């Protein structure tokens, strides 16, 4: 009998709600095979559920917990994440609470040796980076899911075992009212870095585990500084190590500081050690305000991924699939892109529109993305927490030179998370005019947002479908309209968005067409996850159909 802890977690500023266990049909003697079950009600599991529901796929979400996660954890959400969260319906709530920012500072011996401003485009709705504690994001996602009749949240339900068959998977679940078996056609493992499902299947991640350990702590304190990333290198109170400070809503600051080697997490989290170190950091930066600890934990940097995210009917996503160092805000931000990539492919397969080959591109595209992120993250980690004597010496030499020598300062670049470019995807059109464009998002890249009017952007008009962005000042050729209608009649979700004189988006100053290097007759085909899969200088109906079939995995 699994009895979840029903006590609301402690916090000095956040009120934890309890989502009680409810008797599922299986414990009343009714069994059925569900199309999709997601294990894990963290940010990634919930976004996956909401994404699938956009395509009218019902989802059961299983969580051992009965409340949202403890502490801030993922706190920085990128523009791309905001664009994904907009699609699942929580961007407005995020904007109302999150702190947007774009500047990062590296400080050594009291001197700011590097400052980087993430670019912000006038066409973007969302700021490059947005700080909000993870528990708020989870709360917004849960409340959004609760409004959706396609999503069933099963709290207080612990996975004990999983069996994978060729056409379905079975979960053994323990609850306050006993055990039951849950059967599904597809099982999505979004159960985090310590994934039970990954462990039960005995799957191993590949990559590096770094020795550096960080304490992450939330404190309530009034510091009148702007929202920016602050990284302090090699301070007197923590020689050789790095400290990060991030401002969060509700008067909370997040401190991440590296531990001396050989110190255990228990020693690091002992109240006296925490108090002394946090106070030492505040003293160093000249903050005298009183403070109160809200939450703390120990984190170790890893850069690892499963080599394949699909195992028969079990699909891995988020931290269950990969563990990425936090320095470049890569955890949740990468996981959201997994969720968005997976949802449309699985939905198309379930609707009989996409092929099994389409679904396997979830794994190939996202494993490639994870490997690219790992290569980048490893560079940041080598600088933030040098793994050996050689890297430490080089890092220390760069710190020392950085006080007077400008040429070393770019080495402080923190390489923040960015959306992956699926330029080599099997879903991209084989014959289009991709190479002829001099601007606009290329094959594989996410769409560039366009500001259409005050508080009106291109992304506000995108739905759970393929989109054809068609540029014209005349009427759309009948052959193109017919092709789109034919595709729609076979059940393919595809929407035409026209840009130009007297079109859906009028583009009076030609700005949209210029950014997309488009002339009358030019077109972009955009996947449901907002990545471009084809673009033409002059679109023909046959090319459009061929590209759609390619993007659904029906290509040769």
């Amino acid at each position, binding site marked *: 009998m699994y009895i979840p802890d029903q006590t609301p977690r402690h916090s000095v500023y956040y009120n934890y709600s309890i989502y009680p266990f409810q008797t599922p049909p299986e414990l009343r003697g009714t069994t059925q095979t569900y199309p999709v079950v997601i294990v894990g009600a963290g940010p990634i599991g919930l976004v996956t559920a909401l994404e699938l529901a956009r395509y009218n796929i019902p989802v059961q979400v299983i969580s051992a917990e009965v409340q949202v996660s403890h502490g801030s954890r993922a706190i920085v959400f990128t523009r791309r994440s905001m664009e994904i969260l907009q699609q699942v319906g929580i961007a407005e709530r995020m904007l109302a609470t999150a702190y947007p920012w774009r500047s990062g500072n590296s400080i050594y011996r009291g001197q700011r040796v590097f400052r980087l401003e993430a670019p912000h485009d006038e066409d973007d709705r969302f700021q490059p980076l947005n700080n909000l504690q993870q528990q708020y994001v989870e709360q917004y996602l849960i409340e959004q899911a609760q409004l959706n009749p396609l999503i069933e949240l099963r709290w207080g339900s612990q996975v004990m075992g999983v069996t994978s068959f060729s056409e379905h998977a079975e979960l053994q679940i323990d609850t306050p009212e006993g055990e039951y078996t849950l059967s599904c056609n597809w099982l999505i493992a979004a159960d985090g870095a310590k994934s039970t499902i990954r462990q039960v299947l005995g799957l191993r991640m590949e990559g590096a585990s770094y020795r550096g350990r960080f304490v992450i702590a939330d404190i309530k304190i009034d510091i009148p500084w702007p929202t920016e990333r602050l990284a302090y290198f090699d301070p007197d109170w923590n020689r050789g190590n790095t400290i990060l400070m991030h401002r969060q809503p509700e008067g909370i600051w997040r401190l991440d500081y590296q531990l001396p080697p050989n110190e255990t997490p228990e020693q690091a989290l002992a109240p006296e050690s925490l108090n002394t170190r946090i106070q030492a950091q505040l003293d160093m930066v000249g903050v005298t305000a009183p403070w109160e600890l809200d939450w703390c934990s120990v984190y170790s940097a890893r850069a690892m991924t499963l080599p394949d995210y699909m195992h028969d009917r079990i699909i891995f996503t988020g931290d269950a699939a990969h563990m990425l160092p936090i320095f470049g805000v890569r955890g949740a931000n990468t996981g959201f892109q997994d969720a968005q990539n997976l949802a449309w492919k699985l939905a198309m397969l379930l609707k009989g529109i996409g092929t099994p080959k389409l679904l396997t591109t979830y794994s190939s595209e996202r494993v490639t993305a994870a490997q690219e992120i790992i290569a980048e993250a490893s560079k940041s980690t080598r600088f933030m927490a040098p793994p050996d004597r050689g890297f430490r*010496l080089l890092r*220390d*030499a760069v710190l*020392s*030179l950085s006080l007077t*020598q400008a*040429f070393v300062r770019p080495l402080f670049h923190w390489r923040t998370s960015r959306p992956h470019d699926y330029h080599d995807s099997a879903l991209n059109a084989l014959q289009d005019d991709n190479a002829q464009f001099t601007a606009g998002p290329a094959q594989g890249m996410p769409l560039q947002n366009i500001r259409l009017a005050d508080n009106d952007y291109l992304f506000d008009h995108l739905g759970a479908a393929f989109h054809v962005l068609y540029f014209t000042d005349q009427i759309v050729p009948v052959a193109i309209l017919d092709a789109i209608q034919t595709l729609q009649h076979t059940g393919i979700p595809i929407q035409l968005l026209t840009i130009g004189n007297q079109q859906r988006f009028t583009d009076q100053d030609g700005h949209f067409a210029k950014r997309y290097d488009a002339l009358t007759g030019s077109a972009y085909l955009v996947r449901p996850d907002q990545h471009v899969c084809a673009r033409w200088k002059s679109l023909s109906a046959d090319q459009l159909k061929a590209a759609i079939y390619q993007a659904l995995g029906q290509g040769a």
Partner: protein
Amino acid sequence: MSQLGLAELEAVYDALAAAINQVGTEQESLFLTKLVLLLANQLGDQTQIEQAITTALRDL
């Protein structure tokens, strides 16, 4: 690539020895690493620097 004459090489020899003596054993590696990075940046040629690293690793 230009090379140092004997008199210049001897002057560098003395200056480097004096600097190493000045910084002491604890800071020696850090000092030498800084020096290499500064010279590498002035040289501005990745291949030459990598060749020099290989050469310096020889016969230790």
